[in-house]
């Protein structure tokens, strides 16, 4: 059927690999002048050329591996760090994912331009049979880059979420047997779980009899937040610590009432100072009468 080159030898991935290696220097020189490399490697041009060489070599390896569309190709591994650094640097300077992707796309065009030059002087293999594999290979590179960027973002988000959870829920010992939790940010289910655990542990650790939950830094108190607060208060009570919720701002107070939430059985105060006064009062009462009858 096809009377293509019978045994003149190279399958197109191999031919592509050979072409990339043969032209590595020229490709690297061209890439070094593209915005992508220029903007990332700002110190010297040699740096950009060297980085370009690394990418060309890696692409040649992937092509040699035979599977041009393999995102997991081992050939990508050596430049993975470099790709992360490059895409990261570009997105930090304000480029969107799509814009970074386009810059990586421009790498292909620079190589495509060289194809006719190369083949004219080269061999008898039919005209442009490298164009398709070349496009496939660079398509794979782009997907690898985008995937890496998304992965990086995902990791950053996860790290920050973890940090936020830990950062915003300290329990402070204010006085002998008196602890306080300054709550900051929205109390969703995950966070309120952390708050409750930290508080209950602190109650045990400090042998606390009074705990202040300050919600000055909580922007919105809806029914779920209120439910979490009440559960926390109830658990602390079971462990022998009386809770007071402070930092109830006027707007929050009105909202709680209209929402229909009943905080009647929970001690509340407007400010942390008021709560502290109440707490000291409670302690005084306990000291005077440590074992109330009945």
């Amino acid at each position, binding site marked *: 059927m096809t009377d293509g080159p019978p045994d003149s030898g190279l399958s197109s991935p191999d031919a592509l690999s050979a072409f990339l290696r043969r032209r590595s220097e020229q490709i690297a020189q061209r890439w070094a002048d593209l915005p992508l490399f220029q903007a990332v490697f700002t110190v010297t041009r040699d740096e950009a050329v060297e980085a370009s060489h690394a990418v060309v070599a890696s692409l040649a390896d992937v092509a040699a591996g035979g599977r041009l569309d393999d995102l997991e190709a081992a050939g990508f591994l050596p430049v993975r760090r470099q790709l992360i650094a490059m895409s990261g640097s570009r997105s930090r300077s304000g480029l969107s994912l799509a814009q970074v992707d386009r810059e990586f796309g421009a790498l292909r065009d620079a190589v495509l331009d060289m194809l006719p030059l190369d083949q004219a002087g080269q061999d008898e293999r039919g005209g442009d049979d490298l164009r398709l594999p070349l496009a496939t290979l660079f398509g794979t590179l782009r997907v690898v880059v985008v995937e890496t960027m998304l992965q990086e973002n995902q990791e950053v988000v996860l790290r920050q979420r973890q940090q936020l959870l830990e950062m915003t829920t300290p329990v402070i010992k204010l006085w002998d047997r008196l602890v306080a939790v300054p709550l900051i940010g*929205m109390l969703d289910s995950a966070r309120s779980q952390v708050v409750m655990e930290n508080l209950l542990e602190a109650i045990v650790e400090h042998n606390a009899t009074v705990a202040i939950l300050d919600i000055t830094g909580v922007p*919105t108190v*809806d029914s779920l937040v209120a*439910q979490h607060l009440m559960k926390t208060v109830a658990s602390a009570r079971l462990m022998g610590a009386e809770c007071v919720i402070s930092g109830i701002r006027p*707007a929050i107070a009105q909202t709680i009432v209209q929402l229909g939430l009943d905080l009647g059985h929970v001690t509340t105060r407007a400010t942390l100072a008021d709560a502290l006064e109440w707490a000291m009062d409670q302690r005084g009462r306990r000291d005077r009468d440590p074992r109330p009858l009945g």
Partner: protein
Amino acid sequence: MTSVPERAEAVRLPIRGDGDLTAVRHQVRALARELGFGLVQQTKIVTAASELARNTLLHGGGGEVEVVRLEGPSGPGLRVSFTDSGPGIPDVERALQDGFSTANGLGMGLGGAKRLVQEFGIEQAPGGGARVTIASWAVSRPAGFGA
């Protein structure tokens, strides 16, 4: 060119997870502040939006919120619509009752949200789910308006 002013400002956000609730609250608060809502009114509509966004997530299995700037005769206002593709709300009367909950909550969400805003409506969404719409105005209107 006839442009409808309230459409021009429409912001749509997805409600797919807990994290999206924060985005909804931020969006509503930012617009309410921009429109000159007082602190109490800001807090009320943000809280109502928070309740309804959570309902969209828990009962509707997620959906979408649309935040629209309104231009009323007595000043600017804010309308927030929550659309989900869940089973809808079979018994609206009952759902509005305080203490009625199918999700182990306090059962204050829907009724509470209604009390926090000046206008409130529930309808069947085109897709079969529920659409809950609330609106408030920067300048308070007489009680009972739109009830």
